[in-house]
């Protein structure tokens, strides 16, 4: 019973805002809510995103390197966290679902 309660407590709901073309690809409107196991980081959020929406695999992170695609940026609490370690804990407002984790496409012509 004690173990089961611990597992439940480790799941948190985070909010993610996707760029338009990925919302279209995933067939979602607006932001998405995702259950994240453990402390929310870029990696755990993206793992949860890809598990829920398999069609997004390879579109945010490169398949082979797992690196963020060059024309995408990650924001948390209006801070650009793109160059932080993917395993660094995100700010508590994002981790608690108050603020969204934002995946933003670069403003580029074409």
């Amino acid at each position, binding site marked *: 019973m004690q173990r089961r309660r611990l597992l439940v407590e480790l799941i948190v709901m985070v909010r993610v805002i996707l760029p338009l073309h990925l919302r279209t690809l995933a067939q979602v409107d607006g932001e998405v809510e995702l259950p994240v196991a453990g402390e929310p980081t870029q990696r755990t959020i993206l793992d949860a995103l890809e598990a829920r929406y398999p069609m997004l695999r390879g579109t*945010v992170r490169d398949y082979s390197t797992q690196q963020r*695609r060059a024309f995408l940026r990650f924001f948390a609490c209006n801070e650009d966290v793109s160059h932080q370690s993917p395993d660094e804990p995100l700010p508590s407002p994002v981790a608690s679902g108050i603020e969204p984790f934002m995946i933003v496409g670069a403003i580029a012509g*074409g």
Partner: protein
Amino acid sequence: MSGVRVLVGTRKGAFILTSDVRRQKWDVSGPHFGGWEIYHMKGSPVDPNRIYASQSSSWFGQVIQRSSDGGQTWEPVGNQFAYQGDPGTHQWYDGTPHPWEFKRVWHLEPSLTDADEVYAGVEDAAIFRSRDGGQSWQELPGLRACQGPKWQPGAGGMCLHTILLDPQNPLRIFIAISAAGAFRTDDGGQTWRPINQGLRSEYIPDPNAEIGHCVHRIALHPSRPEVLFMQKHWDVMRSDNAGDLWREVSGNLPSDFGFPIDVHAHEPETIYVVPIKSDSEHYPPEGKLRVYRSRTGGDDWEALTNGLPQQDCYVNVLRDAMAVDRCDPCGVYFGTTGGQVYASPDGGDNWSAIVRDLPAVTSVEVQTL
């Protein structure tokens, strides 16, 4: 035959044009996947409602879409293209080693016998195959064993852009790579060999090299798959022995630079090209958009101009942007970087734009339904 469906890939989405067999009135559906580059779409010869599309973007990478209802609805399928083993390096533009990196799918070629089997030609150059309707992809790495470390990109990238399946020999496949050349397998893709003898490219250090030629497109007629036609960077070529030896058939073309080449559906010696002025001026000579037709398998060419702009036209026609239907008479279709898709319902004698003002057209395929 009930009609014709034209699959148009553009820089900003896919469009599907449909008509009855008279090919006079066209319905336009799209954009599908608006905002994404659609390098290629092609339907299965076994099940015409099964269509595969290559969707990509600089932001989000590669997606493969599949339709099972003729393009009305789509579902994303597998998009992981992992080279088998350590792919090592190829040559970069300056001759230095450069790691092999997957960038995008240029061409999708559905199997002639199985709607769930499809080949993908990718950049950096390799061929992949899916046997589960595009859900998963496996490389045929024997191709890169053909001196892959010596391959070098063309200006558009090191792309495998042409895949021809031999309708009479299921073990034989032809492919072409810019700028490595043409290759053939006779064992279903396990081993490959260069088929570039007879090509001469003055712009590479050894003009007669076994590899390194910038082949833009090859084509064959299903009734005679041993006869191949090639539009090279410069030169239009022909082989009568499955690529073992090529000879030039540029003849009286105003320019033998160009990208697409295709074969009439019912006349194996009737071929089409679109001459382009040069490799640095990607537009037609004299501002006149002309398709050239040879009824003799090359050498003797006639300009087809009726209905095509004959002044102030400076569009390009990309390598995968020409196709033919199987109606009688044979229809010929091509798309331009200016966004027009031209069609001729009579083998090239008369042309009209069946849609114009699309984004730049990257590919045109035709299904005869």
